[in-house]
């Protein structure tokens, strides 16, 4: 298992930008993407803030490189935009040159369209070209749309482990490269906002009515977001001669096995996932320069994750922040989006601020970074993602030792 997995490309779209450059601009100007819901007709639009991508489906279709008669779900369009940027940034011109796979992740797939058309689907009196959206309901359909748009043929799969989904797609891709099954994989995830998830999280009473405040003693919940994040990972052979952004050195997956939706107070599952990631990477906690936390801003997540971190790092937690006050919680996409942030942190030696943090949590030893820190030495980044169903995942990105 000595094979290395290199990151050679990144692509992103979220409430803070439609590509990597715009995203960096928003970080630099400390501009959060959280605001008023505009593209979904929900009765909660004035009361529940969200981090929405600032474009209509028509605009996204054009950004994805299609003419206006191309019809697909917002989930698929976001994914296509980010995946295309990732492929381009990796300098891939011939996708068939190596055995290439696409592993995407999503929590609700095409639900954003299903929830608008469901009653029409059931009414056989009504008909129209919107019937094509029936098949786009399935999670895998957005993956096939993304795969077809970039020409991937050798392997496609989709993962849905709630909010840890795209961390798991990155992990699976890395394992397939190490097993010699693929030479390179486009991995990440995509999710669009929907009434389904807004109302679902609302019934759980974990949506903050204001901007979320991860790791703050007075945190009141999360802000939902949408977007997509994909990265290109390659074997040493496939990456030869290319600019290498960093190496994916560690990954771990476990289950909290505590409750269908809530994390355990001691973060046992989170701890296990991190422990496995360290074991795969051969690194020690002291090697980590920055942690991009799951940090949703809910009472339970931040206590559970924070407690696990304090235990894992022996209360010497390195610089840590949650980027969710910028992007919102993008559910199945957050592992991919935050992987892009982790990679950029290494590339530019910087640490993003955890916005809106004021009050120290008494239970935890650490305080998240509050200012945008530049000129740091960032060599190893830990990125956590946890989800409903007890699914916990951790990834470690490291500065690549061999530049070629």
């Amino acid at each position, binding site marked *: 298992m000595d094979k290395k997995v290199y990151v050679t490309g990144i692509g992103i779209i979220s409430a803070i930008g439609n590509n990597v450059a715009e995203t960096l601009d928003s970080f630099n100007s400390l501009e959060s993407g959280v605001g008023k819901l505009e593209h979904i007709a929900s009765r909660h639009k004035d009361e529940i803030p969200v981090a929405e991508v600032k474009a209509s489906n028509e605009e996204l279709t054009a950004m994805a490189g299609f003419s206006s008669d191309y019809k697909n779900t917002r989930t698929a369009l976001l994914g296509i935009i980010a995946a295309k940027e990732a492929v381009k940034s990796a300098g891939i011109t011939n996708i068939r040159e190596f055995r290439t796979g696409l592993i995407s992740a999503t929590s609700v797939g095409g639900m954003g369209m299903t929830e608008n058309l469901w009653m029409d689907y059931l009414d056989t009196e009504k008909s129209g070209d919107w019937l094509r959206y029936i098949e786009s309901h399935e999670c895998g359909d957005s993956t096939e749309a993304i795969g077809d748009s970039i020409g991937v043929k050798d392997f496609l799969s989709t993962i849905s482990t709630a909010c840890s989904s795209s961390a798991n797609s990155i992990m699976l891709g890395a394992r397939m490269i190490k097993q010699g099954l693929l030479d390179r994989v486009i991995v990440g995830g995509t999710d669009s906002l929907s009434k389904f998830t807004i109302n679902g999280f609302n019934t*759980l009473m974990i949506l903050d009515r204001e901007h979320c405040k991860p790791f703050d003693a007075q945190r009141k919940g999360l802000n939902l977001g949408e977007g997509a994040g994909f990265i290109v990972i390659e074997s040493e052979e496939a990456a030869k001669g290319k600019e290498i952004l960093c190496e994916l050195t560690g990954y771990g997956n476990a289950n909290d096995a505590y409750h269908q939706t809530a994390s355990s107070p001691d973060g046992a599952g989170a701890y296990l996932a991190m422990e496995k990631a360290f074991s795969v990477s051969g690194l020690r906690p002291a090697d980590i320069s920055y942690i991009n936390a799951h940090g949703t801003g809910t009472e339970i997540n931040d206590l559970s994750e924070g407690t696990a971190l304090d235990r894992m790092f022996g209360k010497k937690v390195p610089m840590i922040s949650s980027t969710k006050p910028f992007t919102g919680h993008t559910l199945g996409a957050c592992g991919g989006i935050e992987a892009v942030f982790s990679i950029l942190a290494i590339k530019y030696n910087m640490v993003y601020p955890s916005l809106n943090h004021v009050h120290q949590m008494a239970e935890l030893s650490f305080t998240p970074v509050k200012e945008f820190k530049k000129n740091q030495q960032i060599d190893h980044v830990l990125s956590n993602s946890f989800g409903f169903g007890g699914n916990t995942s951790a990834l470690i990105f490291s500065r690549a030792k061999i530049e070629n």
Partner: protein
Amino acid sequence: MEAYIRGVGIISPQKTFDTEEFLPEVVEYSNNSLRCMEPSYKDFLNPTLARRMGRVVKMGIAASSACFKDSGIAMPDAIMTGTALGCLEDTEKFLLAIIENDEQFLTPTSFVQSTHNTVSAQIALQLKCMNYNFTYVHKGYSFESSVLDGLMTIAEGNGKNILVGGHDEMTDKYYRVCDRVGYWKKEMVPTMQLINSKSDGSVAGEGAAFFMLSPEASDKNYAKLRSLKFIYKPENQQEIESRISEMLAEKGLTANDIDLVIYGINGDARYDGIYNQLKDSYFKNSTAAYFKHLCGEYQTSGSFAMWLAARILKSKSIPPSVLIGDNRHTSIKNVLIYNSFMGTDHAAFLLSQC
């Protein structure tokens, strides 16, 4: 990457659960929507918990429990399941509540149960199993991805007892919705007539099937799973055949070594040609079988096919109800499954006698 199938557990539209018998008789359907023969869940779940769970979650718990029992394994080293549609019943419940009540007066139960990873999560929760846990949701590759992950996990040396499985449920409403895009036959086709049907569309199915994969040889094993290939959107028959040839060559085999081929024939005139061409030319010397008349068409039907192959290899017998033509082989050593869902997600499995 290879593994033994140590144990199985399956709930299907046939009598497959809690029985030693191997498809003793065919349960016939003539309504184009085959639904599972569900057991009484009180042996697997406390009634309060069961009331809150959707049908597919209960089927998943019961079928996986049967697999644990069959394999003699209490705690798996990893759990990975595949489901294309997730928990459809609860998804519809929450969706309808949003629409009918205009986003008001909602309760979280059906939302919480609707998440695609509910089955693998509930299995972990019931067992207090903190090990690796994945849920795949890729249409006709949902179950296949879970099996591939199982094979990889064994190859990595990360476990000796790996639970893989596939589960999907059909609902009355979703049947009607899929009917609008031509999934199902317009005329009612009884079970044993499906293979002779010449019209477009198939009959709907569902099921939950689990397998314990293990790297260790044992008298208890059903079969050896030797290879699994994904053939995404093949451009023509030649591509399918060359991919199968490659797969067999990797194991030192040719088409003539395959004693039995299990085809995903579903009575849909649009897609059955691919299977028939394989049957009549590439695999012309192999015994042929099919299964979708017994379980219906659904995205994770590959799990029913893998169960069928495993049982055939263990029992050394082929139930007459799945045969197409005669059984030309006195002994069945190598079985190939060729299956696809709606013409896009094709997959081939190779299984051999232990």
